[in-house]
């Protein structure tokens, strides 16, 4: 998206140099760079601190004046974490929860988006309006009744209960629909003339062309659910099915917490590491995905 660079700065005052490219005075560029470095420091610093403190000896974390770089590295904090929290199991729970929600909503949202984007049927307009209205209902406002429904079905403390209410979402459907609308009509007309059925067109014509949007939705879904706190917090009272974010919050982040900072940072590191790695691998998709959601507004 920003790969093709702007020819002029938003600031305006630019000077043409040989070759046609435009450059601001060196002093200005140094200032801009300094500002960006400062921003990166602000965003990256807490992450660096988590990583360093997680491997620091206890007495160095609980020490004034605090020091950033530990004198030696230790795994004691991780041992302390494992004593308080079934980390491995809850990481697995997070993976099952976020992974299943992502896979299910990939299936359900794409099917629905296809019908809304590529099929002409009676009631589509009304349905679209209703769904747009639905998008404005905040999940938090429905927490209580959803919990009651899940509870009456016996779903509390089960993966079923964590996953099924999230298996489809209107925002995801709309993201995909907006993308599918932009695909040329000729694509499916050609397939239709060849006698392909509706599902065939969906599967082998439209889906392959929707990959960027699918990946974006999948990433957002996975990250959102892996990081979610409130929903797993209320749906699980049992540490066996509780995802890591909620488990961590209960152990480290409450007034009654007695976990030392080093242990908290070890837990925080385990919770963020998979996502940070995922992000660094496919960061382009994340950034373009945000741009995509922003553009439709």
């Amino acid at each position, binding site marked *: 998206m*920003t790969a093709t*660079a*702007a020819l*002029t700065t*938003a*600031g*305006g*005052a630019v000077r043409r140099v040989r070759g046609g490219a435009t450059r*601001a005075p060196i002093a200005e*560029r140094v200032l801009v760079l300094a500002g*960006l470095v400062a921003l990166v420091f*602000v*965003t*990256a610093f*807490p*992450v660096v*601190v988590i990583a360093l403190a997680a491997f620091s000896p206890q007495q160095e974390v*609980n020490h004034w004046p*605090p020091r950033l770089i530990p004198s030696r590295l230790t795994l004691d904090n991780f041992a302390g974490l494992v004593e308080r929290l079934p980390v491995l199991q809850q990481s697995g729970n997070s993976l099952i929860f976020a992974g299943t929600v992502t896979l299910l909503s990939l299936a*359900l*949202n794409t*099917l*629905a988006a*296809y019908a809304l984007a590529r*099929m*002409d049927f*009676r009631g589509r307009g009304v349905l679209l309006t209703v769904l747009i209205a639905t998008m404005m209902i*905040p999940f938090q*406002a*429905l*927490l209580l*009744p959803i919990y*009651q*429904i899940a509870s009456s079905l016996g779903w509390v403390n089960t993966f079923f209960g964590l996953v099924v209410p*999230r*298996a*489809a979402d*209107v925002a995801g*459907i709309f993201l995909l629909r907006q993308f599918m609308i932009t695909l040329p009509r000729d694509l499916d007309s050609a397939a239709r003339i060849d006698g392909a059925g*509706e599902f065939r067109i*969906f599967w082998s014509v439209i889906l392959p062309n929707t990959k960027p949007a699918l990946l974006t939705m999948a990433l957002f879904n996975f*990250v959102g659910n892996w*990081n*979610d*706190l*409130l929903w797993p917090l209320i749906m699980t009272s049992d540490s066996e099915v509780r995802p890591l974010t909620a488990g*961590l919050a209960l152990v480290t*982040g409450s007034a009654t917490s007695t976990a030392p*900072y080093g242990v*908290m940072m070890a837990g925080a590191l385990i919770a963020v590491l998979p*996502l*940070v790695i995922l*992000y660094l691998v496919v960061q382009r998709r*994340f*950034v373009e995905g*945000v*741009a995509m959601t*922003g*553009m439709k*507004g």
Partner: protein
Amino acid sequence: MTTTASPRRYRPPVPLGGRRGPELRRAELRRADARRAAKAYAFLGPALLIIVGFVFLPAIQALVTSFTDASGFGDPAWVGIDNYVDALTSASVLRALLNTVLYAAMYAPLVILTGLGAALLLNRDDIPFRGFFRTAIFLPFVISMAVASIAWSFLLDPDLGLVTYWLSLVGVHLGDVFGTAATALPAVTAVAVWKNFGYFMVIFLAGLQSVPRHLYEAARLDGAGRWRTFFAVTLPGLRSTMTFVVILALIGAFQAFDQIYIMTQGGPDHATETLVYRIYTDGFRDFKLGFASALSYLLLLITLVLGLIQLRINSRHEEELE
């Protein structure tokens, strides 16, 4: 459904326009319509089932519950609008509403201005490492609010925090920011701004790409300075992006919960209790289901109004563009 002809008799394919009666043609169209709709709803079915079951039904149930004194025990009694009256006259709920509004009033401008500022710094081709800067500034987006909260309560710890220490070196003594009523709400807001401004930056970067280049050129030829250009070209060009981010920030602000749950538990002295935090404590801790449902509907209405404002402004933009 009054088809007069027998359906069994062979009919040659009908040419376009039809040589049969319009009556018949219409029936055929209706059947085709029904077939198409059946197919479409087969595609929509699974997703609609989830949305009906876990959005529509809960929305209705919350509305009904909000008019009762349901508590999870015994049969709930109908109490009319008592819960709403109680909520809007209760000092503690009004405090939570005020906190939420204050939070939104700090969060939205801050996250938008820092996001826009970062986007303006990055939106130029005469600086190196742009990809790296963008990646690093967007990073907090993938970090959960829970982890961000744990990290910042460590960094700002009055006795052990690195940031507390560094600031004390330059003469700024923070004290216990999360434990002091006056600073707790701004502090939890700041953590949310930290986590989200990179996200807003990326939205603005996309918006900046859509500002027509020739306008900058024209402004330059007219001798407009950089501020003039910013206010006359850049900002107007970002208008629809701006609507989107303002509503996005406000809706997000009204849902604040995670960092409050972890860092302050609504305290000190209710200074950081927000609407969603109250829904959580009233509903899931105190089992005041009816009351919490009324609070849920307040949240729903606020969000709905914000969403409708956005739709309205958007449709007006589109009209102007046409």
